[in-house]
């Protein structure tokens, strides 16, 4: 495989400007992430301390194999929700290694509102369990939650992907023979009690862990019975009397050590075999991405420069290099795993869409996972293209992509607009994971375009009512719309709403993809099959 020849000059003014801009953006991103991870009100930390409970991040370090990576999902979930008072949606999820096994970790963050479940908490947990199901990953639940956040119960409780889905997914995992461990470090009340109960193995920490369908106050209210937490659902009761919990632990570190021991008993998954090659670091420094990604999202740049900084040895076998050039397709290796990459280099035309459909089929046939690098404003519009059947060519691409049996991975590296988001395997299309870069944007159309369209409508309405608007009036309407749109388009908004699995530092993309691909191979790849292509 040939090495991509980069045309980037790291000494150029443009590069340095881009780099400085990215430094600013990344700095902001890291600060936000740091804050979401570690900054807590003093009294919450004191409370944990008083309860002899560990901070969720420390729990993770006790659980995970030392010196191994952890791919955290959606660290900025709920960033814009609940006035920003629920960092990370009060739960930490991610893939890590425990006793050498790839596992999904779902850890309630009791330092945020006692670990109460907000609607986005539940969404994040359900998503993590979906990832576990899709990738057949054992799950380790670290339970420490005050329970559903009552004022928002309607967002937590009833819907298909609300809290019930957590337990439903647990059952599916069990049915699929994918083990789960629950470590009960705090209270598991009401529905939450089912998290340990539906786990194959559970550990409960003496003195702090408790499991009950109704806690002492509720019991008192319902039946008048007065009972202590320990007697109602404490460690010793459940491990000796009810059998609802399996392993008593004297303290949290011991509980995590037990969990590690349990995980060591898990059968190792039989991995789907795909093509691999010896691992090679990218020839070009991934940090050069900072200077490659333009300051202005609308400035076009060559996606090959991105590929060169993600793949092994910066080597890339480009498929149909002369055809449908607005979509770059080809094979490469990431951490040794062979992948088929589709990266946008402009608007999707008929030929680019057909090229995509063809290349996706090839990858399905030879069981090569797909990586989509989205930087797309959509499919080409206009008479020529409609006459050529842009819709049905786009539909071919969707049919091939939506019908794929190989795992798909999406990184939104720039814009993700219109049907391009769909064609390039957006959220609705079941990418195993979907990440965004900090400057990425996602929406039906760009903010400016949307704002203009809306202002047009408003102006026409006013005109109908006989009012003519001055430039200033129009600006006054436009500006707030623009601002609100820009927010809604931003990666931060997307990640807040869990439309993605998290924002990535571009230089982290290689590792994130490497881990995601490795995990995806726990599920066997079916034989290929498609729907009907509209030819």
């Amino acid at each position, binding site marked *: 495989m040939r090495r991509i020849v980069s045309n980037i000059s790291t000494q150029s003014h443009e590069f340095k400007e881009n780099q400085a801009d990215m430094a600013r953006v990344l700095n902001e991103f890291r600060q936000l992430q740091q804050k979401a991870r570690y900054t807590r009100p003093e009294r919450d930390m004191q409370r944990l301390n008083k309860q002899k409970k560990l901070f969720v991040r420390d729990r993770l370090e006790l659980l995970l*194999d*030392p*010196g191994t990576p952890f791919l955290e999902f959606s660290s900025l979930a709920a960033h814009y929700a609940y006035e920003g008072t629920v960092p990370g949606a009060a739960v930490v999820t991610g893939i890590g290694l425990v006793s050498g096994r790839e596992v999904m970790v779902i850890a309630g963050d009791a330092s945020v509102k006692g670990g109460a479940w907000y609607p986005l908490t539940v969404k994040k947990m359900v998503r993590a369990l979906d990832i576990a199901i899709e990738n057949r990953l054992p799950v380790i639940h670290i339970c420490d939650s005050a329970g559903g956040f009552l004022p928002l119960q309607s967002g937590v409780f009833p819907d298909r992907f609300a809290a019930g889905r957590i337990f439903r997914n647990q059952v599916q995992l069990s049915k699929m023979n994918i083990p789960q461990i629950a470590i009960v470090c705090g209270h598991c009340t009401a529905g939450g009690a089912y998290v340990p109960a539906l786990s194959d193995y559970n550990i409960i920490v003496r003195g702090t862990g408790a499991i009950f369908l109704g806690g002492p106050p509720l019991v008192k209210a319902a039946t008048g019975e007065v009972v202590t937490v320990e007697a109602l659902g404490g460690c*010793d009761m459940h*491990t*000796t009397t009810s059998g609802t919990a399996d392993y008593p632990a*004297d303290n949290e570190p011991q509980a995590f*050590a*037990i969990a590690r021991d349990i995980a060591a008993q898990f059968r190792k998954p039989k991995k789907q075999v795909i093509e691999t090659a010896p691992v090679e670091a990218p020839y070009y420094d991934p940090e050069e991405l900072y200077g490659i990604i333009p300051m202005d999202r609308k400035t076009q740049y060559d996606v090959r420069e991105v590929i060169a900084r993600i793949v092994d040895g910066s080597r890339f076998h480009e498929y149909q290099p002369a055809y449908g050039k607005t979509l770059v397709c080809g094979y490469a290796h990431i951490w040794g795993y062979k992948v088929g990459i589709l990266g946008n280099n402009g608007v999707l035309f008929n030929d680019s869409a057909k090229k995509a459909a063809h290349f996706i089929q090839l990858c399905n046939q030879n069981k090569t996972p797909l990586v989509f690098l989205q930087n797309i404003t959509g499919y080409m519009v206009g008479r020529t293209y409609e006459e050529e059947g842009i819709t049905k060519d786009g539909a071919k691409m969707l049919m091939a992509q939506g019908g794929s049996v190989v795992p798909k991975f999406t990184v939104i590296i720039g814009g993700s607009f219109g049907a391009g988001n769909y064609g390039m395997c957006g959220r609705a299309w079941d990418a195993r994971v979907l990440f965004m870069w900090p400057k990425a944007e996602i929406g039906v159309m760009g903010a400016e375009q949307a704002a203009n369209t809306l202002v047009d409508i408003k102006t026409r309405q006013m005109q109908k009512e006989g009012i003519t608007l001055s430039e200033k009036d129009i600006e006054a309407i436009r500006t707030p719309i623009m601002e609100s749109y820009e927010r809604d388009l931003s990666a931060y908004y997307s990640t807040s709403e869990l439309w993605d699995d998290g924002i990535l530092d571009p230089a982290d993309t290689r590792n994130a993809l490497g881990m995601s691909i490795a995990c995806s191979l726990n599920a066997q790849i079916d034989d290929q099959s498609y729907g009907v292509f509209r030819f």
Partner: protein
Amino acid sequence: MKREFVIGSESYDVLLNKALGEYHLDVGDRQLAIQAEEIGSGEYFIYVDGRKQRAFVAVDDENTYIHMEGKAVTIQRIDPFEKIMGGDGADGSGSSLLAPMPGTVISVNCEPGQQVSEGDVLMVIESMKLETTVAAPREGIVEQVNFSAGDTFDQKALLVSLQAEEE
């Protein structure tokens, strides 16, 4: 994976990993590229960042003995996770010893106020034609003994209780 290596009174936390065929050892904030080549039974060439030493190594359950650079050093190996595990907690540090099944007390081997160690026999009971010893699950002071020899008891009867542990 981590180990705590103890040499004399000094303790060293190390982290070993193997990436792309190469072992790396993290010691403090330094990372060493290391390798061992067994050249004879218990005899090795050890490479650290490209430098070489010959070493004789013998290992038993607890220690590693290394003869290198003309001297022998004993290194105690501690798996931090096993260290945390300690007891399995199964018997718990619980305070109440409940009868596992109905039966008769054969003998009482402790009295209230007595200091007992983990594993001390507190009572011998008989049921289902089997004699079972009731042992102290942890160190502590006997709080209450609820039966005398010859007494019968029901399942889950509180046989002996220990004073609660100080927080």
